């Protein structure tokens, strides 16, 4: 009996010392020029997080090749959050205390970021985040006594919808044959879809909206037939599905088999399956996005990024998180350059003033207050359409790469 306690005690001792050893504190070396350290936390197991980290690396490599900033090289430390709040939070703590990074960047899932906010707040270092679109995150940031150090580049979920409201109004005005009076929203039942639906409902004031949830193929669902049938009965001007990448094929196939071809067929996944554009069903499907590969024909910066990324990593950027990661580093670098120092106050001031006329995602970037926080970057997303296997930009018209195909061609004609 006593032996048991003893063993437990020894085990605890071992475990605690292992933990202590396992997370060594840095050996203090004095390099000739102290680098500027950027700490990023991404879900590296996922294509979005991995390519976003690659985008950051590309930017860092380019900046260092050009001599760094303020004469100092950039050093990028990327950690995995495994989509787990506990892991993501610990990663921030590690970057702050072990690697002693100067600035936090990166990010993706809102659930993970919520857990990171208290720790980021505690350190209060400048943070430039490119993910976590949930308005819950915005509320959590705004609830902090001071959040001047926080910059959010990704539009908030309600801003994304606001953008589409504006965009659709413009499209309807420019192309009178397109109507948008009745909308049916099929949304996945998790946080992503539920928020998307609730916000759409609130913001599309002049549109009659019906909605219904479905189980995403990510969670073993993928049977959308009931939802699609209800949508067909509703006979909407636009059918919008708010789900994930793996839902795309099922949506198209199952809509086709019941002959559901509304005038506007729109999907809003974070990315699309490999080769989606090549299947005939994709033609004239609308989508929302922060970015499109086709912008390389419009924006020099997007073109530069596209080819540099392919050259460096041997693969194409698959989602907008790749260019966004690139923009993340470029933005931070521009701010430091402008401030001429890493001191918090001037740096925040400088970042606020950073202006890009063009970025890797093909948009201008400026910082302005959002509904609740002071430093918000991008606020809009584009309206695009699959045409001939490419994601053509329809709106904003300034960066448009194509005219819309309307109405949605009948399934039989493909």
């Amino acid at each position, binding site marked *: 009996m006593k032996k048991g306690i003893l063993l437990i005690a020894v085990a605890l*001792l071992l475990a605690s010392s292992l*933990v202590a050893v396992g997370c060594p504190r840095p050996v203090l070396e004095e390099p000739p020029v102290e680098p500027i350290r950027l700490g990023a936390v991404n879900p590296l197991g996922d294509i979005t997080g991995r390519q976003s980290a690659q985008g950051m690396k590309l930017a860092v490599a380019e900046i260092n090749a050009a001599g760094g900033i303020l004469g100092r090289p950039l050093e990028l430390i990327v950690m995995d959050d495994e989509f787990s709040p506990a892991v993501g939070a610990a990663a921030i*703590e590690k970057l702050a205390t072990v690697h002693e990074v100067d600035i936090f960047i990166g990010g993706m899932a809102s659930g993970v970021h919520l857990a990171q906010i208290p720790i980021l707040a505690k350190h209060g270092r400048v943070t430039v985040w490119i993910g976590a679109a949930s308005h819950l995150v915005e509320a*959590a940031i705004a609830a902090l006594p001071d959040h001047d150090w926080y910059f959010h580049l990704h539009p908030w979920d309600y801003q994304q919808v606001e953008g589409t409201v504006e965009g659709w109004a413009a499209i309807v005005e420019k192309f009178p044959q397109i109507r948008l009076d009745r909308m049916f929203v099929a949304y996945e039942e998790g946080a992503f879809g539920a928020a998307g639906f609730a916000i759409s409902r609130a913001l599309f004031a002049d549109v009659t909206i019906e909605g219904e949830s479905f189980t995403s193929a990510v969670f073993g669902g993928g049977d959308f037939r009931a939802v699609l049938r209800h949508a067909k009965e509703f006979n909407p001007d636009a059918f919008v599905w708010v789900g994930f990448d793996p839902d795309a094929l099922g949506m198209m196939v199952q809509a086709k088999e019941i002959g559901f071809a509304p005038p506007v067929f729109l999907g809003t996944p974070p990315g699309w399956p490999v080769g989606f554009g090549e299947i005939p069903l994709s033609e004239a499907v609308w989508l929302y996005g922060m970015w499109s590969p086709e912008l390389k024909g419009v924006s020099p910066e997007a073109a530069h990024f596209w080819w540099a990324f392919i050259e460096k990593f041997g693969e194409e950027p698959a989602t907008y998180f790749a260019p966004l990661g690139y923009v993340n580093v470029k933005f931070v670098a521009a701010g430091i350059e402008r401030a001429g120092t890493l001191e918090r106050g001037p740096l925040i001031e400088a970042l606020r003033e950073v202006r890009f006329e063009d970025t890797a995602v093909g948009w201008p970037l400026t910082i302005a207050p959002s509904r609740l926080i002071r430093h918000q970057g991008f606020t809009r997303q584009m309206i695009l359409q699959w045409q001939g296997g490419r994601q053509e930009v329809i709106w904003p018209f300034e960066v448009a790469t194509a005219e819309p195909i309307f109405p949605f061609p009948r399934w039989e004609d493909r």
Partner: protein
Amino acid sequence: MRNWRYIVYIVVISLAISFPFYAGVHPIHVATTILSLLALALSWDILLRGGQLSLGVSAFFGIGSYTTVLTHLNWEVSPLLSIVLGGLAAGVVALVIGLAVLRLRGLYFAIVTLALTFIFIVIVRNLTDLTGGAIGKLIPSVIFGGDPAMIYWLTLAIAVATIITSEIFQKTRIHFALTSIRNNEIAAKSSGIDIFKYLLFAFVVTAVIQGVVGGVHAQRFAFVSPEESFSLTFTILPLAMCLLGGSFSTLGSVIGAGGLGVLAEYLRLMMPRGHLAIYGLVMVMAILLMPKGIVGTIREQLVRRKTASS
């Protein structure tokens, strides 16, 4: 000899308590996570000692999380009290469903506890007004103002309480009751053991622990959502830790949690991409090489050596 043992004992306790003073903030975070998984693993093992394999740890964890957050938000209960309430709520739910599910045995019990987890997810997701639905709820501030050392000590206290509970279960009549039930229920009944009473007791006690751990988790990260709070990770990871360390003993879960926790941290450092594949491989290898877990295998070796020498 005896003195020496107490010295080790005191040293370990003081090391564990003073950990935040000599370790960096990141190790404190990692240790906090490991300690909470340790409590879950040990609580799972306690029920397993009675022969019942539960796959419902996440269910009680989630109930604890949600109760904590909702009582804290709606009734302005203090964070610590709300965690206690989280544990109580999990206990009450366990009592009610235990009356039914503890009639089941083996894989049927396992599957039903797992199914219950999903049922709670669906309920929480659909009761939008109360729970915030699929999006979840936020707490405006983190417990102890986010002081990692305080959170560590709180988690340590819970882990130690779980270890003590486990040792109480091992050293009193409960131990005899549970092992007898696990060995053969009919024989246990005929020895005068009220099987149902003991299983229900173990089920409720372990659910309270799981609920409390869930409550701390929610207070530590200041939010709840169906996907995060009822995540199957909180069932599977503790299960793996317990089985790797060695089931049916306090030490097994402690070693398993420490081992797997530290391993995960190392792997994450060594290979940012693909470390989970190695993690799975380690699990497979460990179970093939040490089918009785680390503690079980070592104990077996000791017994063998003793027999060989005598």
